[in-house]
């Protein structure tokens, strides 16, 4: 079986070595390189072509968000898991916009890292449960305080299906195949959904799905 090749990027050696030990205990995972800042991560990603990049957000010289943006553009096949201390929406959304597939809190890295790496390697998203919880709490509180209805209730069952599949990282074509619909119909459902939920772009859609617990 082909091992999943992983690149680690974190400016703290202790953290990197801890993660490395954790990953290499798994038979199907191998760490092919370690970067200590964003620039190094960009260079190693280009030379090593890993399957998965596990990268810290707060790094010197070039931070994780910017490095992820560059790597996602030049090597879209590399699945990026952002490591962060922050569960706030700002970070999650920026990470998603930068092209990250997974978002992992450092607190729970030890528990969730293996799962996260496997998920993104399979093309799925992964978010630390704590992140989903924080996002959902914020969302619910805001709805309650402003007294508005949850626009999710306005979605049709079909639209909810489309929302979930798109959020999981499927393309329109894949969704169409899975649901037995035409690509145009899927496109219509998707844009209707985004309009109802007031979302702009796939990253916001994924964030919304995470928030609602539709994907994890």
């Amino acid at each position, binding site marked *: 079986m082909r091992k999943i090749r992983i690149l680690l990027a974190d*400016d*703290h050696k*202790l*953290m990197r*070595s*801890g*993660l490395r*030990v*954790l990953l290499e205990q798994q038979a199907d995972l191998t760490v092919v390189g370690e970067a200590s800042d964003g620039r190094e991560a960009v260079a190693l990603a280009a030379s090593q072509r890993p399957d998965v990049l596990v990268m810290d*957000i*707060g790094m*010197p010289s070039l*931070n*994780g*968000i910017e490095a992820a943006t560059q790597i996602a553009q030049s090597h879209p096949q590399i699945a990026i898991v952002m490591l962060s*201390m*922050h569960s*706030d*929406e*700002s*970070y999650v*959304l*920026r990470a998603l916009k930068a092209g990250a597939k997974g978002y992992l809190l*450092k*607190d729970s*890295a*030890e*528990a969730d890292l293996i799962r996260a790496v496997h998920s993104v390697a399979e093309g799925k998203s992964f978010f630390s449960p704590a992140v989903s919880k924080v996002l959902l*709490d*914020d969302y619910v*509180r*805001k709805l309650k*305080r*402003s007294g508005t209805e949850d626009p999710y209730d306005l979605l049709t069952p079909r639209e909810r299906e489309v929302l979930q599949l798109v959020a999981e990282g499927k393309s329109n074509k894949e969704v169409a195949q899975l649901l037995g619909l035409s690509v145009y119909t899927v496109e219509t459902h998707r844009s209707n959904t985004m309009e109802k939920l007031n979302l702009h772009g796939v990253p916001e859609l994924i964030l919304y799905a995470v928030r609602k617990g539709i994907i994890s």
Partner: protein
Amino acid sequence: MSTQVVGDDLQLRKRARKLRRILLLAFGGLLTLMVVAGLDALHSLRQLDGIERQVNQRYSTHTQALTTILISVHVYHDQMERYLLNGESSEGSIDADDVQNCGAKVRDALQEYPADSEPDEQALLSEIQQKFTEQENSFIILVRQRAGERPQERLERMGEQMMLRRAYILRISREVSSLNDHKLMEAKQYLAGSFRNVQTRLMSMVALSLLAGLLLSLLGGFYILRLERQSRTRYEELVASRQELEALSTRLVDAQEEERRSISRELHDEVGQTLGALLVDLGQLSKVVPAEDNFLQGHIARIKSIVETAVKSIRNLALLLRPPMLDDLGLVPALEWQGREISRRGDMEVDVYSEAVSEQLADDVKVCVYRLVQEALTNAARHSGAKHAQVSVAQSGEKIRAQIVDDGNGFAAERVRGMGILGMEERVKRLGGSLIIKSARGKGTTVLAEIPAALGVGLKS
């Protein structure tokens, strides 16, 4: 230092009081001098005038009395001559009694002469009196002897002697007159002298006053010049110290921000990451330890929860000091985070809107807007009881406009100036921006800042 200032102040005030007293005394003295000079001159002139009138009056009475004496002497001799020439026999002639009456008139006139005469005048007068008495006696003797004699003979016999006496009396009278004239002249001379004295005194008084006034105004002028110089120096010192203060407060803000950033980074990066690595290791450890070893597993779980608590508190501390999102993500995400953070912790819901805000803002602009919003939101959440707050940040051209509106109780914006607001003002002023705080009781608060944004490239680390 403050006691020194108070001491200086006290001394200054004491000196000013002393100076005022001296000035008052000097001006008072000058005024008194002038008044005294004027009064003295007036008094002396009045006195001189009185004396002159007296002198004139005395002269005229003396002259008049002397004239009366002279006229009566002439009349007497005239009568006597006629008597002696004509004799008693002829019709309408004069008798001896008439002559003697005229003599009495002369004596009266002599008696009438003012008593305030000088001794030499007195002596001359008594000589006149004596000669006249001799004349009268001679006349009486002549009258007694006249019987039987011819008038011509009688006249010849006594005439020579009597004529001599008459001439003598007239001469002495002239002497009295010239004596009077002389006295008058003397008095006039004395008066003129006195007048000159008064004049000299007045002149010297005026000169003295002028001199004193000149001296006083010179001293005053010097003092004013010195005061002016002193106040200019003080003003310059004040300006300099205000500039120093401003520079100091700017440095203070900078230093505070820098310190916060480094402590935050230290906490977040070093302590936080170390603890994070520790957590990973603990996870490893718990995997190595057999699951059924409850004692060790329990210990590991406890250590883990302690470390997690430490991580959380350190993260919160670091976030408070300097949110890493300001560096990691930029201004708008940091503001959004800030808004959510406050919404999570309290009862106030914060909405953040942004429009065309560059991600390449200079670091001090980012920090300024961030701290401004932080301060305004913290105030609103803590003190105003607001349920909702709205943060809008917009960039247009080279200006960043940040507005924070809440629906809380508000406050009297003109009166209440806490450290927080002062800090906001200081930060905004430093960047050449403007800050307006509008608030009134029960009307909520609006904080509006405009900051020039074109200040160079951000401090990227």
